[in-house]
């Protein structure tokens, strides 16, 4: 009986949180058009969330691509079709690996930075100080960070995919001897605009989801050191789970 009560309480807490986040998302969308007028604030956040994540995204993209090159070559060799490495790797990167891994890295790098920054602003009364100065922190702080993250994610996904393809090429063509002409021409022949669109849509959706989770958790963090830590952890965990769940839903819808 205790277990049931406990479960019901947890379910209720979960639903309340989902409701609160949905309302928060609605508020963000409502305030976004006005925030676009102060473009400089958004550019700053694109720099913070996007440009500062470039090194980690490019490094990981390169190594994911190189591993894909090795594994793909090993697999395709068994069927004697190593020349299709370019096609297989491009589709894998465009449709799945690019958006998903970028989202996971984005949550770990930019998401945690956003959540901890907002949580610390809450804990050190910076958000309250803004309210007293008659400045709405949602408009001035939260919305630009949300938009900055949401804009950065698809761009980072594109960078990840490009660097990943370079990694595949590096291992497949330069190291393992796949024919360069075949590699690129088969890729160009097989990859369609729809595949690119699928990756782009996923990048946009994951970007909105991860940015929303980060700003929501940070803005609503308990104003203590422990609260900020918990908000940061929750940002990574929830972003990872939501990304993978959304990935399945989007893939099912777009296939």
């Amino acid at each position, binding site marked *: 009986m205790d277990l049931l009560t406990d479960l019901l309480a947890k379910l209720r807490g979960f639903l309340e949180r989902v409701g609160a986040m949905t309302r928060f998302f609605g508020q963000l969308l409502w305030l976004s058009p006005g925030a676009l007028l102060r473009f400089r604030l958004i550019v700053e956040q694109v720099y913070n969330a996007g440009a500062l994540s470039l090194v980690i995204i490019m490094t990981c993209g390169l190594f994911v691509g190189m591993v894909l090159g090795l594994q793909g070559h090993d697999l395709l060799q068994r069927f004697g079709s190593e020349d299709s490495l370019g096609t297989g790797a491009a589709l894998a990167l465009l449709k799945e690996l690019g958006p998903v891994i970028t989202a996971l890295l984005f949550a770990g790098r930019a998401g945690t930075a956003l959540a901890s920054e907002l949580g610390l602003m809450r804990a050190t009364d910076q958000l*309250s100080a803004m309210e*007293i*100065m008659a*400045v709405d922190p949602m408009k001035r702080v939260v919305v630009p960070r949300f938009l900055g993250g949401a804009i950065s994610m698809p761009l980072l996904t594109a960078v990840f995919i490009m660097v990943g393809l370079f990694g595949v090429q590096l291992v497949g063509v330069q190291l393992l001897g796949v024919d360069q002409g075949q590699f690129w021409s088969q890729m160009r022949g097989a990859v369609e605009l729809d595949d690119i669109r699928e990756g782009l849509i996923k990048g946009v959706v994951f970007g909105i989801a991860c940015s929303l989770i980060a700003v929501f958790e940070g803005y609503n963090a308990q104003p203590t050191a422990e609260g900020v830590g918990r908000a940061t952890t929750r940002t990574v965990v929830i972003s990872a789970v939501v990304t993978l769940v959304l990935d399945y839903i989007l893939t099912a819808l777009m296939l």
Partner: protein
Amino acid sequence: MSQHQAPAAGVEPAAVPDDIAALHDVDYSIDGKVIFRGIRIGIRRGDVTAIMGPSGTGKTTLLRLITGQLRPDAGRVVVDGRDVARLGRRDLYALRRRMGMLFQNGALLTDLDVFENVAFPLREHARLPERIVRNLVLTKLHAVGLRGAAQLQPRQLSGGMARRVALARAIIMDPQILLYDEPFAGLDPISMGVVMRLIRSLNDALGISSIVVTHDVREISQIADMSYILSDGQVVASGTPRELHDHPSPIVHQFMEGLADGPVSFHYPAPDLREQLLDRTGAK
């Protein structure tokens, strides 16, 4: 100092029309814990008013009620003739533009330097030429003695400096009312003296009204025109610092003299020590 005639010690003065802010029979609770019960406070225009009391008596909550960040369960909070709880968002923000607040830790925006922190309210609310913004910011920084620190980052400031920058920011929009939340906490004696003199001199030079929440009795007694002592959700005494010093109430005496024990008990409620040590109470 104020020209007002202070009411007799121990009597809660009724709010008068000249009050810049007043709490009328305000009740407020958080999570079932009563913070205020029918509290009545009047803040007179042009005065430095001290709100004192032991920790946890809701002094900061009182400031948040005045700024409209919290709404009372019952009663009215009136600032400059307007009932704060009844104001819509737009009117509340308009009212807040006439307020400045100094937070305990300064609450400077950590992604902006000192100059931009002070300029922040101007940039948000007024479209002024950069030259005027610069002159206004430097003037206010000069008033708190930190014109030379304009290019520093908040992390490079000491606690006292951060509070002075926050004070410059609080007065940049020429407010009518300034609220201070524990302005002396954690400061060295020199910084404390500087902040203390600034509160008084800004109040008089700018013709504003100041509310100072503190438990630093000695410091605030030197600059306050009127003081309130809160305890157990109510005003237990009010008057000029001298009147409070001679107040007959045991709790006021304990607070003003800083005595460890008295009506506010030194010990948190616990079972009898002997019984507990002999393990007869079942408590840890």
